[in-house]
């Protein structure tokens, strides 16, 4: 249902010179933050076009606000459709969250309650987005630090129900599963149990930080051993799904991230030899 792209990296500005200088062995594709390229021109668009000439590109958004009770932002969807038409991304994704209310954009990924009302609400909005873009999108499980009272099901079940009813895919962020499970006392393997294998269109890996009793999804560290172990479990269950590493702070040299990506390649190879 979704392309198997191999192993990729989240592309960030410090690595623009490297990726535009020539081929990047060890990297099969690149993911970019959609909103950073919704600009008229200049270096961001030049880099994106150059990367797209050599690699599949995945657009990963942070401001779709699919769970908000605000109307969907049609101007945003127009800009996204225009970018898709130009770049022809292999995958388009955003988060199962809300990030705006009353026209106020908060630039964060706020959690949704796990209720039937939310399922109905999000399913209808995903249908609108997919119709507007003429393609399936993926929704990512965000890291969360609160669970709202009145939940009727688990987060994995919510994601699975929405994906099935809306006919969209799931971007499984393994680090976010680990962070949310630790923060809420859930079992990460039971979380994975709830997910339908045929809906998993992409996997994210990242690092996190500790703050008191909570784990925070900071993307400022290498992927930790616990998350690598959970990734191995995910690959065993879901197969060699397109996987990328995200790093947004304390960004290391490009080759260091490529070396980290090799660990993901090893996990996929292990699954194939098992």
């Amino acid at each position, binding site marked *: 249902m979704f392309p198997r792209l191999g192993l990729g990296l989240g592309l960030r500005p410090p690595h623009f010179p490297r990726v535009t200088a020539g081929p990047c062995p060890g990297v099969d594709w690149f993911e970019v933050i959609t909103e*950073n390229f919704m600009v008229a021109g200049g270096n961001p668009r030049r880099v994106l076009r150059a990367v797209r000439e050599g690699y599949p590109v995945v657009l990963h958004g942070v401001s779709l606000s699919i769970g908000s009770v605000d109307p969907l932002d049609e101007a945003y969807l127009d800009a996204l459709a225009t970018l898709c038409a130009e770049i022809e991304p292999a995958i388009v994704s955003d988060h199962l969250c809300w990030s705006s209310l009353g026209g106020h954009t908060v630039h964060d990924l706020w959690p949704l309650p796990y209720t039937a009302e939310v399922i109905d609400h999000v399913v209808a909005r995903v249908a609108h987005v997919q119709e507007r873009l003429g393609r399936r999108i993926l929704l990512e499980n965000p890291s969360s630090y609160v669970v709202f009272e009145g939940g009727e099901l688990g987060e994995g079940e919510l994601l699975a129900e929405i994906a099935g009813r809306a006919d969209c895919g799931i971007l499984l962020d393994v680090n976010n599963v680990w962070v949310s499970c630790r923060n809420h006392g859930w079992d990460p393997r039971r979380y994975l149990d709830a997910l339908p294998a045929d809906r998993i269109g992409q996997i994210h890996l990242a690092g996190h930080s500790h703050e008191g009793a909570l784990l925070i999804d900071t993307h400022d560290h290498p992927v930790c051993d616990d998350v690598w172990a959970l990734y191995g479990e995910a690959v065993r269950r879901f197969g060699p799904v397109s996987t990328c590493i995200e790093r947004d702070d304390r960004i290391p040299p490009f080759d260091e991230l490529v070396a980290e990506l090799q660990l993901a390649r090893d996990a996929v190879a292990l699954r194939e030899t098992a």
Partner: protein
Amino acid sequence: MTRLAALQRQFHDAITGRSSLATAQGLVRDDGIQPLDRLQVYAHAYFVRIRDALAAEYPKLAAVLGDDGFTALVARYLDSYPTRHPSLRDAGMLLPRFLSEEHGWRVGALWQADLAKLERARTEVFDGPDALPLRRFDLAALAPEAFPGLLLRLVPSSAVVPIASNADEVWSAIEDGTTVPFTAAGPRILLAWRRELAVIHRTLGEDEGHLVKRLRDGVTFAELCAGLMDRSDAVDHALTLVLGWLDAEILAST
């Protein structure tokens, strides 16, 4: 209002400081970690993410104000102008206007607004529309009789920035690692533009500043000369200006 709408309103207002964080405690499951501590993660992330984005967009202003001063400014700004754009790039687009509005009651606000205007202009120029610049060889191919009708227009990735202070000197001093105090230097006009991928700005003389403002809408060479008719060397002066603009790549190829 649906249950989801009510929950989002209450959560939003608590996290963004419109109501006390404690008002959202009842929304959140209490499972051993204080709900207030959990909510604080979101409140902290909301503010810090936007403040850090604005500090990256306005590095010189942040340097002038210092960490505490800049943080306080961002808090006041977000109270007046909550972000309404999907991209963090545009979270600070109204900061210059907000600083101008603080002019009536806060010393230095107007001059800081000048610095913010310059920094915002540079941001918008950085990823503005692409365009080919007009070059000397384009003019070499022009028949002499076509010269008066030659349309002169600024490249689209450019901004004319009028200021009342020496904010341009303050910007340069910070860039060079030194300091210059703000002064009321009188009206000045700055031009920011993108040449290839580099963002450039320069301070224009009074005459050139007025002419460059006209270049935003486009002006023919004949009209440019007509605007200089109080000079005896109007045509020569216009030609000198145009050649300088061509070399700086501030004119768009038509």
